[in-house]
């Protein structure tokens, strides 16, 4: 079973994403911001990260940059999932090492399609 860390400051989004990804057979961990996510990764490197951008304490982009510098931090497949839906943000994310990018609002179909594309399904 593959593991996925869901990082979002919204409880509702985490719940929706958890439901979809559990159905796709992922073992789920949750984090409420980038800092929290980084700690989770240092304990246990996940196979995948579903990552929000705007969060308190540490945002998604900062988290991603730090993650990629961690030991083993190049391994997780990181899929951004954010309301930031302009080219500039997408390019920044890809440059920082994101593997895919979902523009909110999302649904099961989009998550499934994107996860399949990066070889997680």
């Amino acid at each position, binding site marked *: 079973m593959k593991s996925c860390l869901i990082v979002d400051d919204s409880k509702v989004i985490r719940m929706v994403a958890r439901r979809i990804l559990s159905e796709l057979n992922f073992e789920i961990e949750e984090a409420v911001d980038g800092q929290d996510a980084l700690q989770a990764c240092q304990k246990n490197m996940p196979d995948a990260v579903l990552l929000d951008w705007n969060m308190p304490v540490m945002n998604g982009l900062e988290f991603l940059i730090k993650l990629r510098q961690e030991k083993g931090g190049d391994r997780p497949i990181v899929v951004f999932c954010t309301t930031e*839906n*302009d*080219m500039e943000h*997408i*390019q920044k994310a*890809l440059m920082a090492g*994101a593997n*895919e*990018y*979902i*523009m909110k609002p*999302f649904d099961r*179909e*989009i998550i499934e*399609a*994107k996860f*399949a*594309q990066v070889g997680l399904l």
Partner: protein
Amino acid sequence: MNSADFQFLADFLKKGSGLVVSEDKMYLLESRLLPIARERGHNTLDGLVAELRKGTDSSLKVAVIEAMTTNESFFFRDTKPFQIFENETLPALIEARAARKRLRIWCAAASTGQEPYSLAMILKENAAKMPGWRTEILGTDLSSEVLEKAKAGMYSQFEVQRGLPISLLVKYFRQVNEMWQIDAAIRASVRFQKLNLMDNFTHLGKFDVIFCRNVLIYFDQQTKAEVLERMSTMLEPDGVLFLGGAETVLGITDKFKPVTGQRGVYQHAA
């Protein structure tokens, strides 16, 4: 709707576009055609059918036929066929056509353009392997409405997230307000043209690759066979035909046979 009217509509559609509507799909006729009936001042389909029976209003005929088409499509639909195209079909053709340097591709039910544009992006990504080549992608469909959209190359956020890798979105699209438009060079590499598969299409010439995906499913056996047989005369001897995931030639025509190890891909039988 009474059964005489239903029969009339079913015959009309089968003749007009090949579409088979069985009696249990009556609701589909209602939901798709009522808006057209209302536009013309009828509260039910009866009035619409009466007008159609008169047979004088050709714009009505077109509207009814177009309204009954299912146009759903997405970029790199089903992933696998496009991987096969890029990793098997294209390298083989690059070798086989090394002297002629010419490649012709036909998407026979192009709908809103995602399929031909997916192929166009693949060609662009592989352009370095084809210096000096002339490549042509033709997208045809019976519905002018979807062709307009295809030509504009303008897609919603939802549409660009189904099947399109983000790296290709960044590379080949630009944002126009809430929409995403595919790059002018990619748009220019695809030609769109209105064509009903029920009509003669041999004038389009010969193709190296034909995509005819997710359209035969709407036809009956005999119509499928007729369309496939006419297509076989337009496919180069070493060309390939791509069908949709729920479509096959088996039991329908002996003009084609499956390509071993490439699901959904067919070649000349003999």
